[in-house]
């Protein structure tokens, strides 16, 4: 589905990741962890094509991102839901409109979509804020909105960068529950997080693999968690 092949990534200076190969199989659930600044966000950006690898290849649904034209990349993004670490929205549209935005761009909103949107807002606890502008949301509310937007387009892959950093433990578990349900429906999930409790909680319910970035390599964390 998505695959890194001998990827080296650097921002001008020394490399952040060297010769990394990882496969994200359909229906798998991956956690991505590692100290702050290790390159978790960088890895996720490679997975949805915001970055192109300095060396090596990133295969997105069988095509190398380096070979994709911009518009092809844009269309590929409709199959990948992304929660960015800094949640960016269109500041002049309401929360509900922002969450529906990817669908609107891809085509028309069906009544079923509207129902999904309403349900989703209830699940992430934002039903009462659906008319608020992004600037009027709290930090945690923005993160939940970003997750809702990523899920809304019914993507095959969901990449979430620290989606629970600003929410309380109860809400974090609720969001995790949502992702686990989606994974059970066959979606591939990659979740970057610092919260080891969250990873432990997930492991009781789903077969999740934990990837740790260390020494510019992506390692599979063993039973230590």
């Amino acid at each position: 589905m998505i695959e890194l092949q001998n990827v080296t990534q650097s921002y001008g200076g020394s490399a952040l990741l060297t010769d990394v190969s990882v496969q994200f199989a359909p229906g798998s659930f991956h956690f991505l962890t590692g100290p702050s600044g290790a390159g978790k966000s960088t890895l996720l950006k490679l997975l949805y094509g915001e970055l192109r690898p300095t060396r090596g290849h990133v295969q997105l649904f069988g095509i190398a991102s380096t070979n994709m034209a911009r518009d092809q990349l844009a269309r590929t993004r409709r199959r990948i839901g992304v929660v960015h670490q800094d949640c960016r929205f269109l500041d002049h549209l309401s929360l509900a409109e922002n969450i529906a935005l990817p669908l609107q761009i891809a085509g028309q909103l069906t009544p079923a979509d509207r129902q999904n949107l309403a349900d989703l807002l209830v699940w992430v606890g934002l039903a009462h804020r659906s008319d608020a502008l992004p600037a009027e949301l709290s930090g945690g509310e923005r993160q939940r909105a970003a997750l809702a937007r990523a899920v809304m387009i019914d993507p095959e892959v969901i990449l979430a960068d620290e989606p629970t950093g600003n929410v309380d433990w109860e809400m974090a578990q609720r969001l995790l529950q949502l992702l686990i349900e989606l994974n059970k429906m066959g979606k591939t999930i990659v979740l970057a997080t610092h919260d080891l409790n969250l990873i432990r909680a997930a492991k009781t319910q789903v077969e999740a693999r934990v990837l740790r970035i260390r020494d510019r390599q992506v390692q599979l964390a063993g039973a230590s968690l």
Partner: protein
Amino acid sequence: MTSLLDFLRGSQGDGRFVPPSKLTGRLTLAAAAAMSFLAVFALVLTMAAHRQAALWGQTLAGTATVRIASPHEPEQVQAALVILETTTGVNAARILSEDEHAALLAPWLGPDLPLQDLPLPSLIEVELSPDGIDTLGLNLRLQAEVPSATFDDHSRWRAPLIDAAKRMRNLGWAALGLTFATLAVMVALSTQSALASNKQEIDVLHLVGAEDRFIARAFVWRFTGRAVAGALLGTGLGIIATLLLPNDPAAGSFLTALPPNGLGWLVPFLVVPLVAAVAYLATRVTVMRLLKETTL
């Protein structure tokens, strides 16, 4: 009407993904309006200069005089008339009556001079066609058949005014050219800069899967709409300003009215499609450049 308003607001197509006018967005409208206003004004003045030049050229270039020095020889005058009537470029030729002759000379001779007693030359007033006349050929023919006749196309008097008219016209064009160039630059720049302040929105749209075409269309319509609204506003104000210009030169004076006449009123509206085209191109180029800049 609603659809025009929609268009101007940019809500047609994908305009709702474009943030409504911020301070920087209003700039496009204002720049288009201000520059259209100036352009209309320059256009009206250039048109007036053209008409003025034409009027001066006509009034002065349209007539000439043939003077037959030997007085009291009507057959010579008739011969000259025949020659004139068969010359291409001459619309009409007419012997000046004695009263007209007297009026011409009055400033220098006084009104009371007994002209009939004087050995005055006869004068033929020649009305020229605007295509001009072969002065050399006419002079040669006159010299051959009516040696006492002299053709005078008033060029000595005409030259400075023709010069002035020509220069006025040229300056009009220069000013017009400069105004339109500035118009294009300002509309393009303000559109670019307003757009640049929407970089974040462009990024977000791209990140959630919008293709370049989609983004470009959304912004192009919105900004072209704003520029057109500004151009309409500016053109309207410019036309109002034109109407306030002095309209009635004293009858028979050398001056044309300043505002255009008849279909001439349509010309200032050409500013609107021009502004639209400039805004369209500037938006398209800038959006595409901003899109290319994002690696995302």
